[in-house]
């Protein structure tokens, strides 16, 4: 079986390594092959961006050579896909090459879409690329006090990011000794401060305790130099605007008409592209209505690896993805919590502890073992 994995992020990398573990004999015997195509020779640990934005991690700590994370039996090429020829089971790439496949997995990820809100890119800071995260930290270092507004777009990658950046900003301002000069105003698109109700019920009183103002039903409409206006008619002046912008899928998905906003219609249990038996979709690239988080891609990759390996061996795919998601929640003051849920079981987040914070800190390093398929 010729397997093609497109995308070298968390999902694509874990999937490819997991497949080798399951199919090593077949690959060595030349009966199967795994090729991974990526747009970059570097692999970024994306959750690190949050820490870079507040000066708690250096950008270089977020990267490893992609090749160093992959089993040597995986053919790895830095050659972004340009066209998907799904009816004929091949893709073409920027270099002009053609890659045929029996099974393809699309894991191209997502990107920010700040440009969809007039004025947002010009007047807000964000942290979803290395450049943006470093710029945000520089802006924070120059900030001496005033009103900070946090504004959130829909959909966005990492559902905990709005809360985490807010709590981490409080820590940052306290450490600099200027918290008493900051008016922090948190906004959120729906009628509570987080999409997960138990998390919202915990976070709102925390905001009250810490002196954070918050406003719900706030969806960005436009931004001027010192004011953000919501779809709901609210106006919030600011001295510093921090945004978690809306996200969309990658351009190549839109260019090939594979999905609205770059998100591919995907079966929520089988993870195949709707209407296609040999095209699978992973992580942020799906349109499944669950969290766009690294853990989602990780758990989906494990299911897909088992299914694809089984398809190669017996033609059946026994596993179904159950919607499992696990999210750490950095809550500031040296503590963290987590939320875990799936399609059937709602989250039941625990009280934040220092232990969970330190585990998260350790996971920031252990991630590389996870990407290699060792965790």
């Amino acid at each position, binding site marked *: 079986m010729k397997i093609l994995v497109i995308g070298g992020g968390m999902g694509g990398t874990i999937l490819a390594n997991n497949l080798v573990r399951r199919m090593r004999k077949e690959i060595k015997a030349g009966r199967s092959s795994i090729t991974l195509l990526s747009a970059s020779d570097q692999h970024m640990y994306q959750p690190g961006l949050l820490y870079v934005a507040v000066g708690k991690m250096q950008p270089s700590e977020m990267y490893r050579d992609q090749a160093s994370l992959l089993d040597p039996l995986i053919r790895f090429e830095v050659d972004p896909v340009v066209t998907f020829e799904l009816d004929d089971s091949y893709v073409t790439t920027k270099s002009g090459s053609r890659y045929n496949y029996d099974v393809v997995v699309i894991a191209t990820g997502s990107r920010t879409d700040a440009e969809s809100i007039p004025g947002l890119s010009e007047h807000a800071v964000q942290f979803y690329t290395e450049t943006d995260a470093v710029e945000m930290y520089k802006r924070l270092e120059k900030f001496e006090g005033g009103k900070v507004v946090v504004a959130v777009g*829909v959909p966005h990658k990492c559902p905990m990011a709005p809360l985490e950046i807010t709590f981490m900003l409080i820590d940052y301002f306290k450490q600099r000794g200027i918290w008493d000069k900051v008016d922090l105003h948190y906004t959120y*698109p*729906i009628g509570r401060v987080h999409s997960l109700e138990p998390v919202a019920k915990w976070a709102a009183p925390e905001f009250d305790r810490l002196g954070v103002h918050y406003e719900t039903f706030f969806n960005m409409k436009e931004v001027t130099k010192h004011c953000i206006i919501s779809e709901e008619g609210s106006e919030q002046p600011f001295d510093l605007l921090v945004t978690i912008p809306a996200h969309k899928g990658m351009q190549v998905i839109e260019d090939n008409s594979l999905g609205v906003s770059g998100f591919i219609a995907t079966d929520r249990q089988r993870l195949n592209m709707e209407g296609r038996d040999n095209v699978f979709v992973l992580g942020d690239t799906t349109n499944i209505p669950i969290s766009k988080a690294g853990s989602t891609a990780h758990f989906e990759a494990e299911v897909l690896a088992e299914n694809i390996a089984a398809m190669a061996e017996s033609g059946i795919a026994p596993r179904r993805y159950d919607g499992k998601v696990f999210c750490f929640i950095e809550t500031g003051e040296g503590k963290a919590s987590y939320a875990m849920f799936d*399609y059937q079981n709602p989250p039941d987040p625990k009280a934040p502890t220092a232990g969970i914070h330190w585990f998260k800190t350790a996971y920031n390093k252990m991630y590389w073992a996870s990407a290699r398929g060792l965790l």
Partner: protein
Amino acid sequence: MSDRIVVDAKNTYCPGPLMELIAGMKQAAVGDELEVLATDKGSANDIPEWIKKVGHQVLDSFDENGVWHVIVRKEK
């Protein structure tokens, strides 16, 4: 008007039905109808509240076999 757009948010907790609707609204054209499917009964209250604030319209809302159907129209 195009066919009704179905936002299937059954059995999902995060980001949840209203967030999915907000994302769907961004892609819809004025006059489009969207039907949200949710097993979270809070959506039957949250969605109309947001729709009213923003100035869209709720056309119907009903429970069918434990699934809430909320049908809305994008007005602007």
